[in-house]
């Protein structure tokens, strides 16, 4: 790009701007050009993003980068470009229609303060599709879709953006003498800045409503709105805040939980374990550590969890497979071990317990009233045992008992997983729970 002064940002290769005679978009685009000439920004560092609507015809007339996207979504592309390249000047042009269909993006860009400039060419109706009413059509206004007058109230675009937290917002008309200056001022803002520019649609709104320039000013007054700069409260732009938050808040990356097999195992075939408990009984985390312990013993493992969306209440049922061979189909049709430690869980798995095969061992909290089952039942005081350590450790206690009873791999592997992947007090409590779970079985086997 040449370093000499930029005298115009509009190309002369496509002929004059394409708008209808008297359309407000024409002076608006020319004012944007004047503002860019004031600012002398390199064209390759400027992106004009346009929405759908007549204003969407304008990006190609600029010698800058041009991006013409879907209806209502221009702000999202502008934000993506700006987040990716904070050094770029991103100017989004949209109409009042785009502010309706893409209203949420207006609210959210204002709230986030992403440093794009939004210029709304607000002419109270959809000029491109035949003059239907938009979110800014005045009450009683005649349009293709309000043949007896608009019964809806108009949205105040600036007021809406300001309510959402816009750092800089200005309302004007295409007749403003200082329009180019004001656009330049908006572009200079490091944060989000928006201009709501009222104008005439000579194809539709003007003839249908005999609407003239003086009516534009009357309308603004009748709506109780002010012209000019409405808010100027600079605050840190999004990308700067993002970096700063990360730099001040960053923690060391969580270490990977890597396992190197260090124990042998006695598992001849794939084994399916179901553990059914309640939220807060560390069912899922105990099962993950159990699986990692199996991996320390050279086995493969899979884990699936089932719990309600209200994660701090209700059942928590986990399915574990451990296997000396690759685990393909992960569902457990016929469990080898089934653990149930709470009433809530029992309600959830009652039917399944009724269908357990004879080959399955059911490890049940001793206080539970079990349904009839063909499984071999082992009743153990999981809750009472856990309560002596930390009432939450039921998952570890129960799985430690299962491991000791089945001998599928050494309990030392479970201790290894706990020490490797948990820290301080949590590890201490879980190691105690592991030992307590082992002891639930150990005396029986010694006897």
């Amino acid at each position, binding site marked *: 790009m040449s370093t000499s002064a930029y005298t115009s940002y509009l190309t002369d290769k496509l002929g004059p701007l394409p708008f209808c005679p008297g359309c407000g978009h024409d002076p608006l685009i020319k004012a944007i050009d004047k503002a860019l000439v004031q600012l002398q920004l390199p064209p390759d560092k400027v992106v004009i993003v346009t929405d759908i609507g007549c204003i969407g015809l304008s*990006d190609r007339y600029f010698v800058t*980068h041009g991006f*013409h996207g879907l209806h209502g979504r221009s702000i999202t592309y502008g934000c*993506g470009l700006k987040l*990716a390249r904070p050094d770029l000047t991103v100017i989004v042009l949209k109409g009042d229609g785009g502010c309706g269909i893409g209203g949420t993006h207006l609210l959210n860009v204002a709230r986030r303060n992403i440093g794009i400039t939004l210029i709304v060419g607000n002419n109270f109706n959809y000029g491109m599709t035949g003059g239907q009413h938009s979110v800014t059509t005045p009450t009683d206004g005649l349009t293709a879709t309000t043949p007896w007058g608009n019964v809806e109230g108009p949205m105040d675009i600036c007021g809406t953006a300001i309510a959402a937290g816009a750092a800089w917002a200005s309302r004007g008309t295409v007749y403003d003498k200082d329009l180019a200056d004001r656009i330049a001022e908006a572009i200079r803002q490091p944060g989000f800045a928006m201009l709501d520019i009222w104008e005439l649609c000579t194809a539709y709104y003007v003839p249908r409503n005999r609407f003239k320039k003086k009516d534009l000013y009357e309308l603004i007054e009748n709506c109780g709105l002010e012209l000019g700069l409405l808010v100027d409260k600079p605050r840190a732009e999004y990308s700067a805040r993002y970096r700063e938050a990360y730099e001040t808040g960053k923690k060391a990356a969580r270490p990977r939980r890597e*396992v190197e097999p260090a124990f042998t195992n006695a598992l001849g075939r794939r084994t399916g374990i179901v553990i059914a408990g309640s939220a807060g009984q560390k069912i899922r985390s105990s099962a993950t550590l159990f699986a990692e312990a199996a991996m320390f013993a050279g086995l493969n*493992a899979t884990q699936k969890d089932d719990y309600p969306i209200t994660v701090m209440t209700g059942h928590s049922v986990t399915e574990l497979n451990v296997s000396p061979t690759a685990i393909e189909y*992960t569902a457990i049709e016929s469990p080898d071990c089934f653990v149930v430690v709470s009433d809530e869980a029992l309600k959830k798995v009652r039917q399944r317990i009724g269908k357990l095969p004879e080959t399955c061992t059911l490890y049940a909290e001793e206080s539970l009233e079990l349904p009839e089952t063909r499984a071999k039942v082992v009743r153990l005081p999981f809750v009472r045992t856990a309560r002596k350590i930390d009432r939450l450790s039921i998952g570890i206690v129960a799985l430690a008992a299962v491991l000791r009873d089945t001998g599928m791999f050494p309990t030392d592997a479970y201790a290894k997983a706990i020490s490797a992947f948990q820290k301080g007090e949590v590890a201490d409590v879980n190691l105690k729970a592991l030992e307590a779970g082992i002891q639930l079985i150990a005396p029986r086997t010694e006897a």
Partner: protein
Amino acid sequence: MGLEFLEGNEAVVRGALRAKCDFFAGYPITPSSTILQSMLELLPQAGGIGIQAEDEIASIGFCIGAAMAGRKVLTATSGPGISLYSENIGLAIMGETPMVIVNVQRQGPATGSATKGAEGDIQFTRWVTSGGLPVIVLSPATVGESYELAYRAFNLAEQYRVPVFLLTNKEIGMTRESVDLDAIALPPLVERKRPDGTRDYLPHDFEAASDVPAFSDFGGDRIARYTTSTHDKGAYLTASPAVIQEMIDHYTAKVDEAADDIAMVREDLQDDAEVLVLSYGVTSRSADVAVRQARAKGVKVSALVLQTLFPVPAKAIAGAMAGVRKVIVPEMNMGQYRLEVERLAPSGVEVVGVNKMDTTLISPGEILEQGGLS
């Protein structure tokens, strides 16, 4: 050695970061939310940017903007989110935007069951937007493949400048498996082709219809243009039927003519097989078991597992079908990919679906029984 106990979603994140993904935008939805969370945590550490958008439309809008500014972008959602992405996917195809879109499928339609697995979005992904132009769709079966195919998805997106879908499943995304990701061999990283300076830059430049245009960033030293409207190679609006058809032929040819290069399949064929079990995704794991059990009973059976679903790996499918009298296609939907198999099957070959959508996995037993192999 890096044996870990990971869920598929974590593996997708690892694969994306390994592919040097440096932008993510997404919106929370079960069962894909852990991708959003991990990307937002890990991206700044990798020098990238991650943002939770106000909705799915903004998520993909941010991604398209960032991709056109030169970033390698990822977004992740589930079926309901893909519905909201739909219009912007058309834009990404039109603009030849490299991007990777993860769909961790859940039971639909509509809100369906958020925490239940499914494979109901197969044809939806292929025909995801108006116009019917091709996209690339990959489908992993395991946690390890979630990593590998996420990485490969970025390579394909860069190479073909097209949205690439990674179609996983709650049953993979939220299931943990013991896996050593470091042991998985990956091809070299592919970066989008940049203009070489000998021609004026046109955003959609090609000679042969299947050529993939060079890419210059928004904010780069060549003026870039992008448009949702019917356009010419310069991204200027056109109403010329000849130019419009030329562009449509280009979008189509660059993907469809590359079908053999994009095709990834796992073949386990027997010379004298009478039956072929053709599967993809998590169901292929049950198919593997079923095939082994059928062979143990003396049935001559071949297996073909598709990792690329679209463009349809037609050569591999036709090759695997040669000589068989029956093809069994198990799917966690009511028979979506079976349509592709049926149109490729020679006359006289019976194509049998094993289908269910009750949120549970199809078991090896169901494949054997309903496929007539038991």
